[in-house]
């Protein structure tokens, strides 16, 4: 049995490029697959948010090919915007997308563990997105219960349009998403635990990897509980059980007679047990990246590096214990409210430690203000702007006034949505030379993109704090046609409404600049040097770490990341083997 003859027998004609891409189990293709999912979702999500804002500012505006936006259309927009953005953009892109693209290289591995399982995770997530987008097409339209789908509204088609087939489609999509996400997290955890290269000890693992690691640790329990909750809700809808339906519930003059005495609060508990870790899953990779990028461009080691590892883990652990702060006024026992408030305020401590470290690392460092650095600094600014209001809403007595107002909308859009998006932009600008075979994004366009995005982010989301303090509730299909006192209450903020709408549209349009930059750079020749940012982490090693090739030598890590001389003029990358005289003592 000679080798050539075996090769002849076993290797058929190479399939078409598209077929190969679709059946690929290469982590790079899978990572780009996840980013494609997020890109589709973010385009839809942004357009939906524009429609919402335009409708709120000009209620009589008619959507071409559709007509006026009815209240049920508005709630469908709210639901789909939230689901697309939180599930398929903010979770998928930083965690699974950049996780697959960069994580193996950062720990010196040339692959992810279980490649076929990894591909299965990506395709399951893709199926989730496709199913979700189908919700626009089913009879009755998309669900109207919001991304949180509180029962009994989400339990029966009696409760409103979109609660029939639309809600079923939503549940299917979320189940697929939960399964895909869990698979991806298991692959990622195994990769981090088992596939680190020689010398890549836990002490030498970069903070980005700690972010992905902690987020994956959260995904496994949180998404499993979400899957169970979705399954139970499905039983309530179609199999006559009553896990979430109270006894003798009358919806739309029809008695919903299911067996048992359920409680809608049970869904809230299960959903938020998933929902709160979920927002940390969205932000933890960004936090890690921000630490590393600020350190890199400041040419300094991350300030209090080991404390940053501890705070990442602490945020993850506490994140599992604070779900009740979404339920202060939802019928939770007031004593439980106090307990959850204490746990929620406790999270502010590690989060503050992170902010202090970011400030100290960049303080008077004369950093190189490249575009990725600017986005990392923008992340810090948004994190503070959103985090400070988080302390306010963590106090139940204040949440009593602010719950479900635009204050909350402003809070999570700044700290999770926009900070998360800034993390994604930072990642794109920073790693683009690796992802696009040595091409760089234009720095000039990138800076314009950053400043305009920052400006319009604040223009859009800061006024939401004020309109929320003024009492404007979330998810109101229109702010006109209300009764006289409500009209008087909300009339004070009409100007803010136009402000927010204008900001949102400008914020979306600014991203065309980014797209233009992306397209232009992809057509440009590759000019970037091997390590254009003078980075210290393994993905920049000259051996082409992102290229999956078994024939290249396995690298080894010799140092901790962020190893710079004190004046910032030179640095020691992790892959550089030490001279005998400069062996680092750890």
């Amino acid at each position, binding site marked *: 049995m000679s080798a050539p003859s075996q090769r002849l027998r076993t290797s058929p004609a190479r399939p078409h490029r598209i077929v*190969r891409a679709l059946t690929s189990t*290469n982590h790079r293709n899978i990572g780009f697959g996840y980013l494609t999912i997020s890109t589709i979702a973010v385009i839809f999500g942004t357009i939906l948010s524009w429609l919402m804002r335009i409708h709120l500012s000009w209620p009589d505006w008619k959507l071409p090919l559709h007509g006026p936006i009815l209240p049920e259309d508005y709630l469908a927009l709210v639901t789909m915007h939230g689901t697309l953005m939180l599930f398929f953009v903010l979770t998928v892109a930083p965690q699974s997308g950049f996780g697959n693209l960069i994580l193996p290289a950062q720990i010196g591995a040339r692959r992810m563990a279980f490649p076929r399982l990894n591909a299965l995770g990506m395709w399951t997530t893709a199926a989730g997105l496709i199913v979700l987008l189908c919700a626009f097409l089913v009879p009755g339209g998309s669900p109207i219960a919001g991304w949180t789908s509180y029962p009994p509204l989400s339990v029966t088609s009696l409760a409103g349009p979109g609660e029939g087939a639309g809600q079923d489609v939503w549940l299917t999509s979320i189940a697929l998403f939960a399964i895909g996400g869990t698979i991806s997290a298991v692959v990622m955890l195994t990769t981090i635990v088992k596939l680190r290269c020689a010398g890549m000890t836990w002490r030498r693992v970069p903070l980005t990897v700690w972010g992905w690691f902690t987020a994956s640790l959260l995904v496994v329990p949180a998404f499993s509980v979400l899957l169970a909750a979705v399954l139970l809700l499905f039983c309530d809808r179609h199999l006559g059980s009553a896990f979430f339906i109270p006894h*003798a519930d009358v919806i739309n003059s029809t008695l919903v007679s299911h067996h048992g005495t359920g409680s809608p609060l049970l869904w809230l508990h299960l959903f938020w047990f998933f929902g709160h870790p979920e927002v940390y899953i969205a932000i933890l990779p960004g936090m890690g990246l921000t630490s590393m990028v600020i350190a890199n461009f400041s040419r300094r080691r991350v300030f209090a590096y080991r404390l940053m590892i501890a705070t990442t883990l602490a945020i993850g652990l506490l994140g599992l214990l604070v779900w009740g702060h979404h339920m202060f006024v939802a019928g939770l026992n007031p004593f439980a409210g106090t307990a959850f408030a204490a746990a929620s305020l406790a999270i502010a401590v590690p989060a503050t430690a992170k902010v202090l470290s970011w400030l100290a690392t960049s303080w008077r460092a004369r950093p190189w203000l490249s575009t990725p650095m600017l986005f990392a600094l923008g992340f810090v600014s948004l994190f503070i702007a959103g985090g400070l209001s988080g302390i306010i809403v963590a106090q139940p007595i204040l949440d009593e006034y602010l719950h479900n107002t635009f204050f909350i909308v402003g809070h999570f859009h700044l700290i999770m949505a926009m900070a998360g998006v800034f993390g994604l932009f930072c990642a794109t600008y920073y790693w683009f030379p690796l992802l696009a075979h040595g091409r760089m994004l234009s720095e000039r366009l990138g800076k314009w993109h950053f400043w305009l995005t920052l400006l319009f982010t604040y223009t859009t989301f800061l006024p939401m704090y004020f309109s929320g303090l003024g009492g404007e509730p979330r998810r109101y299909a229109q702010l006109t046609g209300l009764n006289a006192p409500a009209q008087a209450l909300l009339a004070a903020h009409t100007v803010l409404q136009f402000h927010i709408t204008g900001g949102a549209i400008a914020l979306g349009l600014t991203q065309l600049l980014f797209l233009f930059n992306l397209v232009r750079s992809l057509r440009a020749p590759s000019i970037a040097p091997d390590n254009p940012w003078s980075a210290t982490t393994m993905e920049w090693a000259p051996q082409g770490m992102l290229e999956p090739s078994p024939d290249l030598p396995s690298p080894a890590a010799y140092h901790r990341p962020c190893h710079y001389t004190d004046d910032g003029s030179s640095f020691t990358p992790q892959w550089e083997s030490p001279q005998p005289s400069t062996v680092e003592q750890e």
Partner: protein
Amino acid sequence: MPTILTPPGIYQPRRPGRPGDLGEGDSGSGRRPPTDKRTGGNGDGDNWSDRPQGRRGPRERLSRARVGLFFALGGDLMFFIALVSVFFVAKTSSHFDAYSRLINDWLPTAIPSILWLNTAVLLVSSVCAEIARRSMFRETDLMDEWFGFGRPTSRRAAIWLSATLALGALFLAGQWVAWTQLAAQHVLFNSNASSHFFYLITVAHAAHLFLGIAALVTALTLLARSRQLATRQVAVDATVWYWHAMGLLWIFLFVLLEYGQ
């Protein structure tokens, strides 16, 4: 070990790289004996205990599969914990009826006694699975195989895994009998809150066992077809640990259904 002792049936040249199988040429077979333990401390100044795992030794893939399985089972456990916590909530929740009386309409579902038999079958199947798993790691057999004296490990494991498969199928058939018995008594999914859980829990567990049976079939196929010892070891080991986990889970769920209602 001089490589001249390596029999041709075991030695495998590295296959041309497939996109899905990146850098996974080193299975351990044909290089080091399959019982190789991690070595180190050769005085080269390298701190082995502080070095994470590279691709070293035949146990590497095995431990990777175990770590992956551990995390996946953690998620699975949370899934069942969520179901069981809802079980306890539903069991104790009550409502006021039209006469302001507090009504708790939880009626315990009578558990068919065949479930005791099923439990015993599942326990025996786990024992068989464990024998199969251990036989994959018996050092004398491994060395025999490495020297080219047939495949004693796989032959033995295949027998015991087939027994596991048969007992597993028997368990599922037994569960089916239990469902039909209950259905004959008109205890269906939507009869009562407790019957929701009976069906939910047993069906969810059965779905997991179906996955386990699929894994057993895969492992048996690999035992017959795969020439790489490490692949066979990983397949049998992961399948059996999964099987044990499902067995333990069943005992917990069964005790819950039998005594927890």
